[in-house]
């Protein structure tokens, strides 16, 4: 038993868990034909059947059932603050499965030249009385019961009077901001706290203008819009929900990582050995000290950024995203790729941090400008 816990503690370390999830993701939500083929071959799409759904739920239930036997796991999961996030895990899984199930059924029908399931519904009418009103009423009652039972059963997690000289350790943002807080580990506040949230909002606003695929409207489908779905799902599941879960359950005192079965020891120390790109190049690569001139020192970082944001879209337009370039045209294509590259910057930076201890690509602490 201890060995299992130890193993889980080990693999939940983000350096392992995150890349694993990313790789798995490519096969579960294949964004191009290549991965789709593998997906089909491995029959991963079977996840979106009743049996698959049962398996997902069973897996989650088993994991939590097993976990709750451990005192550390129990303390963290049953904290009144954290209970909603446990609920979130189940709810997100369920609705993800439910949507994908309908999508995959429709995909099968479309492959057989049948209309989608939704198309079979009559288009002109909704049965309001008593069908809709009745089930709405019942839902209302059930939700009220849930809220009452929850509020009576779990007391509001009020804490001591706030003391400016004693900040809670760990200091955690509200759960819905934990993804942003997690970004702060990898980016400076001006990026993680200001630029990224703004870009996220602008990016979401621009989705209707960037996505000109007419297929898949009004019905669930994955294969007809695999690129759109998988990109969105990546950011939603991996970069938002996953980071909230990490922030809630796996970040302990001093914002250190703790496995789900590990004691949150306030004295745990982790060595901080991160280096900037300039130090990589000058000190490790060229074996010389950093140049005094800031621009000279950071020119490599700027070069990398130029390649990433300046050249990558051009290269991609000729290679991987040839079709998209064609369908979107140059302006919409450039907006799309810049947004995409910015969003991918987060996982890339995380990966660089874990793999190479890279602190900043451009580091100008003199002007509080670090990327």
């Amino acid at each position, binding site marked *: 038993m201890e060995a299992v816990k130890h193993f889980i503690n080990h693999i939940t370390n983000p350096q392992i868990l995150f890349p694993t999830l990313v790789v798995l993701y490519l096969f579960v939500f294949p964004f191009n034909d290549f991965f789709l083929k593998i997906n089909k071959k491995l029959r991963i799409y079977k996840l979106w059947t009743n049996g698959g759904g049962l398996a997902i739920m069973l897996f989650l239930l088993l994991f939590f059932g097993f976990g709750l036997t451990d005192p550390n796991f129990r303390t963290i999961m049953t904290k009144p603050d954290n209970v909603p996030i446990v609920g979130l895990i189940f709810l997100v899984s369920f609705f993800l499965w439910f949507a994908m199930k309908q999508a995959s059924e429709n995909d099968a029908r479309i492959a057989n030249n049948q209309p989608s399931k939704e198309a079979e519904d009559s288009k002109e*009418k909704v*049965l309001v009385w*008593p*069908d809709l009103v*009745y*089930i709405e*009423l*019942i839902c209302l*009652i*059930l939700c*009220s*019961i849930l809220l*009452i*039972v929850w*509020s*009576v059963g779990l007391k509001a997690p*009020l*804490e*001591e*009077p*706030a*003391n*400016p*000289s*004693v900040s809670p350790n760990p200091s955690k943002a509200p759960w819905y901001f934990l993804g942003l807080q997690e970004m702060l580990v990898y980016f400076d506040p001006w990026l993680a706290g200001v630029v990224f949230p703004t870009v996220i909002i602008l990016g979401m606003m621009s989705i209707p203008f960037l996505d000109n695929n007419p297929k898949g409207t009004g019905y669930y489908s994955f294969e007809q819009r695999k690129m759109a779905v998988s990109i969105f799902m990546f950011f939603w599941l991996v970069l938002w929900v996953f980071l909230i879960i990490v922030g809630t359950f796996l970040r302990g005192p001093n914002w250190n990582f703790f496995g789900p079965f590990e004691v949150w020891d306030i004295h745990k120390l982790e060595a901080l050995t991160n280096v900037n790109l300039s130090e990589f190049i000058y000190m490790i690569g060229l074996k010389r000290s950093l140049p005094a001139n800031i621009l000279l020192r950071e020119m490599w970082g700027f070069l990398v950024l130029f390649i990433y944001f300046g050249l990558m879209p051009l290269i991609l337009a000729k290679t991987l995203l040839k079709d998209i370039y064609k369908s979107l045209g140059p302006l919409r294509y450039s907006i799309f790729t810049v947004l995409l590259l910015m969003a991918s910057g987060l996982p890339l930076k995380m990966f660089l941090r874990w793999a190479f201890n890279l602190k900043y690509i451009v580091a100008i602490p003199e002007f509080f400008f670090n990327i």
Partner: protein
Amino acid sequence: MPNPDERHYNPKKLTVLFAISSVLLLGSVVWMLLDDYIRPWKDTQREFRALEIENTRIQFDAENTALEKDSEYQKLSQQLEEAQKKFKRDCPDYSNIEKKIAELKAADDLAQQQYKFTKAELDAAKYRFEEASTHQAPDLKQVTQEYEHLEQQVNELMLKAEASQQRLSDQNNRLNSCQEQVKQLERQSRQISSRRDLLMRKLSGIDPNEMNFTNRIATMVRDLPILDLANPNYKIEQIVLKDIHEDVNFMTVPKVDRCISCHLGISDPDYKNAAQPFKTHPNLDLYVGKDSPHSMEELGCTVCHGGRGRSTSFNGAAHTPADEEQKKQWQKDYNWHRFELWEEPMLPLKYVEAGCFKCHSGQSTVKGAEKLNLGVQIIETAGCYGCHLIDKYADWPKPGPNLQHIKSKLSKEWAFKWVKNPHAFRSDTWMPAFFGQTNNNDPESIQRSDQEILAMVHYLFENSTEYESRALPVKGDASRGEEVVESVGCMACHEAHPAPTEKEQLTREHLRQEFGPNLFGLGSKTSKEWIFSWLKDPKSYHKATRMPNLRLTDQEAADIAEYLYQNRVSDFEGQTVPAVDLTVLDKIVSDHLIKNQTHDQAKQKLTMMTQDEKLHFAGQKLIQHYGCYGCHNISGFESIKPIGTELTYEGSKNIHNLDFAFIHIDHTKWAFFDQKLKDPRIFDKGKVKLPDEKLKMPNYYLSQNEVDAIVTAILGFVETHTIEKNKSEDPRAQTINEGQRIVRQFNCQGCHIIEGEGGTIQESVQQWLVDYDGRAENEAQAMVNSFSPPNLIGEGQKVHAQWLFEFLHKPTTIRPWLKVRMPSYEFNGEHLNTLVKYFNALDNSEFPFVEEIDTSMTPEQFQLAEKLFSKDYFGCASCHIVGNQIPGGSPDSWAPNFALSKTRLKPGWISEWIKNPQKHLPGTKMPTYFDPANFESAGPEDLLNGDENEQIRYLRNYLMTLTDKPSSAKQEAAPPASAQEAPQK
């Protein structure tokens, strides 16, 4: 055309689902209401109600039985019965009258109402009339008519009402005159049974069995859910303290204590034997009680006890168990756990006195708080403030001896052995142990410690300046020395025998007795010459020493030196001192060198140093490291700050700032302090540390009761800005506090009884009486007061401030029969002034402490007074010394010299003293000539018409004329004492 029967769902199924979910909703709402309604404190209040009913019933029954046995009450009842019979006999139409009264009353009520209503209409009509007549309205006439009509009506009705009232009162008078005797007796009987009736009334308010049906229903209904919003029986009781604020960091809120919601019997003496939470406070005279200085209404509960006053749940109130046993009990009964969300949990019972300092922080001791005072005094004696800055001790002298002339006092070997383990030489020393502790007693550390001590000793001797000890001018005699030590006053502060191996429970009395070091074993420590020189003039060796000069003669000093020198501690002498181990020393030196240079530079420097230089260098660094200079004067460390954590507000420290490391104890402040004091190095356990990173607080080897006392004091060191009512701001209290600090600093209570405490020396005086004066044990006990330093009660009232100032500055002999001497402390001006102010403040005498009383006498008066003074009357001189005339009899009956009276004593006090000496100094041997019980006949009847007050006045004035030469008293008495003195009456 849509099909009306088309359905997505089966309506029947939906209805079933709807029904089920509705039932569930109802269930959850009921649960919610019950959860809100059922509160643990209500159960407690119900329990208390039952107890209250039981208690009241017992009292009621007792009172009732007492009344039944009370003959007066019985008699009254009988009389009442008879009177009632008589009343019925005398007023046969009594029921008719009553009926008539009822009828009249109804008629009267109606008449009154009619009158009032009509008058109201008249008022309205009046307004309309005024309005109409001012504006000449067209309907003026009509309005006028109406108004006049109503006015007439009102007048009629008024007459009618008055007549009706008269009729009613006539009938009432008739009835009353008949009933008078009954009423009178009823009043009397009620007076006697008032207590019982009161209890009955109380009972009928709380006991459903004593209520009528309506009230019983009402009591039930008022506690029902929702209806209980109005005025329930069971409700949260709270005390709101407007003057005391709770600091919740970003704001302050008035303190609200809801403790009495459960502790319902806390202020009621009837519940002394009840179980918690209903038990009465154990000290109602001092706390909680309405008339106590700390009443509940004014101070609440949590101001002293700590805890979260607003809570109404057991755990939320941050209760703290007194001990392990209670903790287990609570865990069982209340599912108790530590409430971590409140920074100031309730103080455990044994530290509860810490709460006193929240208001009494200006004072350094608090009357009645024995544990707290002991803690404070240990802190002062042990000299915690030497290393730990504590604001109130910022100006205190260093607790340890001066080491600037150590060379002339000690040997290097002795110093080494002492530092290594002071308790081996003197188990009761307050010098703590730095070495051989839990974090440095492994072989490697011991080896290092030895070299460290060698280096420090080397530094101290190297930096020691010369002090010339005087050679003994005469040969001393040890046995005589022993007698001097026992008689002259040394034993007030010192002991001179090996400390007992089994430690007694430390008290403040002990601390006074052990104020100075134990003098045993001086032979192993220093030289005869040094002891002699020190005794003759302590200040010449150490300017700031608190050791006073006893003005010993050369012979006495030599005798004492001889006596003290003969005591040796052979075990200690037998210990060996290791040689300098260069490899270890080099390591120590280089460890310090590399702190501010590279390894290479350090190595180079090390090779260039001689052994002496290394010792000197390491010694200096280590003295700084261990903070020796916090307690001792050491050359080269005059202006370096002490090394300890500041403790001024240690009690307010946040728990997060205490490092519990790997030690598994409760995460509370007191558990930390307790552990730290018991083993100061324990928090190093399990840690990997370099030698100079280790914890270095030394070990005092404190017993549990000492630790408890110190923890109490430290927990009391709190910031108290939230409590505005700070009584210590009263200037008198401040003066007293300052005086007390000096009294403790110089151990005045070692000899004198001040504020009812002290007189430690009496034990040794008694011993001296037995050993050297040939008294029997019980005789010595009886006369010990006469041979001990005086009790200083009422000193401010008694002596002139000027005299006190001069006496403290340069003591003179007042009681020549005493062997004990008032030593010369060489107080500075500030000390002297503070002490004079202190004694005067104690007796409520105010600046400039002068009493203006005319004590002049005419020659006739003088003769009369002389007569009173003579053997024929009071015979004052048979005990009192007058100038150089020593009275007959043994010295234990002697009394102070009258020649000093004029300069020393305040005349007002003398009168009061003669009148009733026992009142001013209980137990004094001064006879009470004027028995206060029958004062008027106490004095002799043949002088001054037997007026006692006059006799006392004459005696007093006579005393003021006495000087060293009694024969000249007559001449001095003739002129008026002083022109500026106001006449007495």
